[in-house]
């Protein structure tokens, strides 16, 4: 078994187009998903049931229905509400809403990770709720927010592959096209996977840089006092003393 790389190089154009579309879809969905997530999280945190309950329902709906099913619900369902969108637009909308449910839970957790006293003090000195959120809470929640949001963003890039089922010409769809022409599934899907791998790695690296700029995460290492137990409890190579 040898890898026939000419299959990849001959169709590099299609792969590139697909990769560009995947980046476009992902970026659009990540940004709009984040924007939707903030109001959803704030509603979810509201002490009033009438406000928090719809937010809980929204989050649970999107998190418990597989994205492939959700996507086809949007595809067949939006016309019922008089909305006839391109498959690409439908896909971005569905992916953004899907992502917003996960982002909302992260925002909620991040806001809760900031001690209550911070909000109470800010309100006590006369800041409005929104101003206190923006100037006191948001800057402090980033430490918690960024690593989790990175993971969800990466999930969205991966989940965007499902848009191929609507014939949206993104990376997976182009992979299927090339596979249909060349009958070399192993090479084609390995190449497709590698491009996704590169995209998600880039995304992770980008977020890591922004995390470092914000002061960085404390590294958790296995205490040298417990070197014996580390034989079982640590998967990292033993630290040199």
């Amino acid at each position, binding site marked *: 078994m040898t890898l026939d790389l000419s299959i990849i190089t001959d169709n590099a154009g299609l792969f590139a187009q697909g990769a560009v579309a995947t980046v476009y879809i992902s970026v659009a969905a990540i940004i709009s998903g984040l924007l939707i997530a903030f109001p959803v999280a704030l509603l979810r945190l509201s002490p009033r049931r009438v406000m928090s309950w719809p937010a809980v329902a929204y989050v649970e*709906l999107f998190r*418990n229905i*597989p994205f*492939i099913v959700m996507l086809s*619900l949007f595809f067949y369902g939006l016309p*019922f509400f008089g909305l006839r969108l391109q498959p690409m637009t439908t896909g971005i909308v569905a992916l953004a809403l899907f992502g917003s449910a996960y982002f909302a839970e992260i925002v909620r957790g991040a806001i809760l990770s900031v001690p209550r006293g911070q909000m109470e003090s800010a309100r006590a000195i006369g800041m409005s709720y929104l101003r206190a959120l923006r100037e006191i809470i948001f800057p402090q929640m980033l430490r918690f927010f960024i690593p989790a949001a990175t993971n969800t963003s990466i999930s969205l890039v991966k989940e965007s592959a499902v848009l191929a089922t609507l014939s949206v010409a993104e990376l997976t769809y182009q992979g299927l096209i090339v596979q249909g022409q060349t009958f070399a599934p192993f090479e084609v*899907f390995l190449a497709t996977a590698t491009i996704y791998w590169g995209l998600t790695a880039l995304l992770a690296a980008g977020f890591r840089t922004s995390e470092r700029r914000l002061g960085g995460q404390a590294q958790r290492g296995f205490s040298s006092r417990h070197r014996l137990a580390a034989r*079982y409890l640590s998967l990292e190579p033993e630290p040199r003393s």
Partner: protein
Amino acid sequence: MDFSVEAALAALPALLRATGTNIAIAAAAMALALAGGILLTILRSLKIAPLNLVIGVVISFIRGTPVLIQIFLFYYGLPALGLQLDPLTAGICAIAFNSTIFISEIMRGGLADMDPGPVEAAIALGLKARAIWGKVVIPQLLLRILPPLVNEATIILKGTALLSVITVVELFRAAQQISATTFRPFETMLAAAAIILVLNVLVSQFGGMLERRLAVRRG
């Protein structure tokens, strides 16, 4: 076109039958992934540098690529390596392999958070590695990582719908087939979504119950 509640209800029996396939696939994949995750974790704990390097690359690959592509690789790609699997087997293998990696990562995190005391005591008592893993580390680890494991189970269950793309007749593909004859895709999909929603909520609730039951033992 008006929304037809009857169409959604009429599709339910056939969809429920197809859901059995999703449950069976998810159960098989979860069992395989749990066993695989434990084995991979023990393998990684041996800290054989070149092996861990390879495992690290595989982990990064699986975490960085869509499950859909992994399913394609198992079903369409493996025959190139001389391994022809039927859609169901290929699908279960793909999901189980993906989940093995994620479970091993969950276990890595769980191990780092564990109290080293009991392990040190077991080593001091001269227990063999087998006994330490089997009777000390794994039981406590499983209790500790129960919440993320339940979450992983719901991810697996949702992932089973992806097998529709390699022609496994499960809930989503059944919904597509029904839509093709009734021309009521929205109603049918809505019924399918409701079924899997209920199923997932049940799994989460069951997980929550299990957690409360075991909370005492977790200390």
